[in-house]
């Protein structure tokens, strides 16, 4: 459902994304790994519309979104979470998700009643929070949440937008190691249930091998290897460049 065709983005001399070709199928969970500066975040920024490419195309369900604004892409179903979480810091957990729903259903201009009266939307928000393991925390504000919960909330907002493609930028970074799997379990359970395609940037190899259908390795703007997690991890070149393991 996502096709990236010969995408190129250079920043002066830096070849951030260098003629990348990529396809993601519906319901697939694909991880991108690579050293810092390999171009992973730039690729995600290009897909979400934050920056525009120099050349190449991005097709989303066969629609050319290469030059579409982020706003249009969100409406079409491309959602993302952020490395540095971006939450509504002074609103409740419930409102963080529910407001996204109101926006999605275009109720902001039409809704004249108090937000709490919209029971179906409110219940949906609660369901999303439950599905990601945040039940019971609806009336808390982000200030009172743990790091792991903050990350999950960040993703919950993307969920509320009914994204068909989710771009997760280091979803477990900053989360305590003991919580990482719990967080990913909740996220992946919810993803699988809705058959949402997901592209994850990750550095933690345990997470990558534990949850991905496919792994893509980027290096200096190009895709160096692609395949199932264990295949990729055994690849000699990958081991050398990404993990620094040189054999023999």
């Amino acid at each position, binding site marked *: 459902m996502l096709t990236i065709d010969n995408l190129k983005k250079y920043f002066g001399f830096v070849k951030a994304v260098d003629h990348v070709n990529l396809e993601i199928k519906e319901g697939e969970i694909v991880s991108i790994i690579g050293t810092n500066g390999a171009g992973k975040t730039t690729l995600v920024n290009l897909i979400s519309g934050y920056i525009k490419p120099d050349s190449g195309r991005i097709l989303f369900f066969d629609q050319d979104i290469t030059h579409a604004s*982020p*706003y249009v892409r*969100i*409406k079409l179903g491309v959602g*993302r979470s952020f490395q540095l979480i*971006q*939450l*509504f*810091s*002074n*609103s409740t957990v419930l*409102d963080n998700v*529910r*407001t*996204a729903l*109101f*926006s*999605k259903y275009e*109720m*902001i*201009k039409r*809704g*004249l*009643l*108090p*937000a*709490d009266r*919209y029971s179906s939307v*409110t219940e949906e928000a609660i369901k999303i929070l439950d599905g990601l393991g945040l039940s019971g925390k609806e009336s808390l504000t982000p200030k009172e949440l743990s790091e792991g919960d903050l990350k999950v909330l960040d993703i919950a*907002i993307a969920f*509320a*937008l009914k994204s068909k493609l989710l771009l997760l930028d280091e979803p477990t970074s900053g989360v305590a190691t003991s919580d990482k799997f719990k967080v990913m379990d909740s996220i992946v359970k919810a993803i699988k249930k809705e058959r949402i395609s997901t592209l994850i940037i990750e550095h933690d190899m345990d997470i990558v091998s534990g949850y991905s259908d496919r792994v893509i390795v980027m290096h200096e703007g190009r895709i160096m290897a692609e395949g199932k997690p264990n295949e990729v991890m055994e690849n000699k070149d990958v081991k050398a460049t990404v993990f620094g393991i040189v054999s023999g």
Partner: protein
Amino acid sequence: MDFKKVSKHPRWIVYALFFIGLLFVPRILSIHDLMLFEYGMTFAIVGLGFNLLLGYTGLLSFGHGAYFAAGAYTVAMIGKYFPQAYSLEILIPSALFFSMVLSLIFGFVCVRHTKIFFSILALSLSMLLFALLFKLYHITGGSDGLRVPLPTLFGMSFKGIRRPEFLSGTYYYFLLGMFSVSFLIMKGIVSSPFGKALQAIRDNEVRAELIGIRVRRYRLYAFVISGMFVGLGGALWTFVNGHVTADLSHWVFSGEIVYMTLLGGFGIFEGPIIGAMIFTYLKLYAMGNTQYWMFVVGGTLIVLVLLLPNGVAGAFASLWSKLKR
């Protein structure tokens, strides 16, 4: 979710008691004190409107005096040039209309920018209005301003009554009615999905844009709504004051509006109402006791900002939640 419904009830009971109590105020206060109270009430309406922009949308304008002046001068100019239309049922909608137009024009310019630029522009534009009101003295009365006589209300004329009697009689109930309606409308706006969207914009405008909220457009809506509330307050204020001057658009007056909102606390819905009341009394007390009232008020502001950043209502709210535990 059940506990939310239960905890809502006490609040509405308190509100109901509060408004019923307000009905009896004219019997308790002397005419002089009642006038002071009415000043406070008009500023409470101003504060409610202003806080939609500050507390809920996160935009600080030091230029809302312009919309207060728009409402006030609409009343005064109709009084001077169209005395046959000088009745409250025409004056109030007109004031709302002109403050809407002005805040739409000025707001459109301002919301394209953020933070400091926004504040400077809002301030400067209000000073533009001030300069116009001041210099076009043939029309506006300049620094002398314009007199505001007593209006009629649905045919009821108040000729022959003096202002204090008017204010302690029919007008009080009219003002109370306006205040109640403003309160309810603002409460509705703030709890609606639109209100939630504004808060999202306040908390994280980048993310708000990314969840599909048209940040600039909604900021403009908030600006215009707040401008209209402030204009309404301005119009209602004129009858209590009896007189309008160009100062109403000066940025120092706008600063007082900001001050009141902060004083009460801009994080709580009722904060600006409390702030408006306290400020009205504080200013008058200071003015009555020393010629250096600006020093007192300014000093109090500084102390407040440093010690009670959430305002008086905010301090009470934190205290309340601490006691509850």
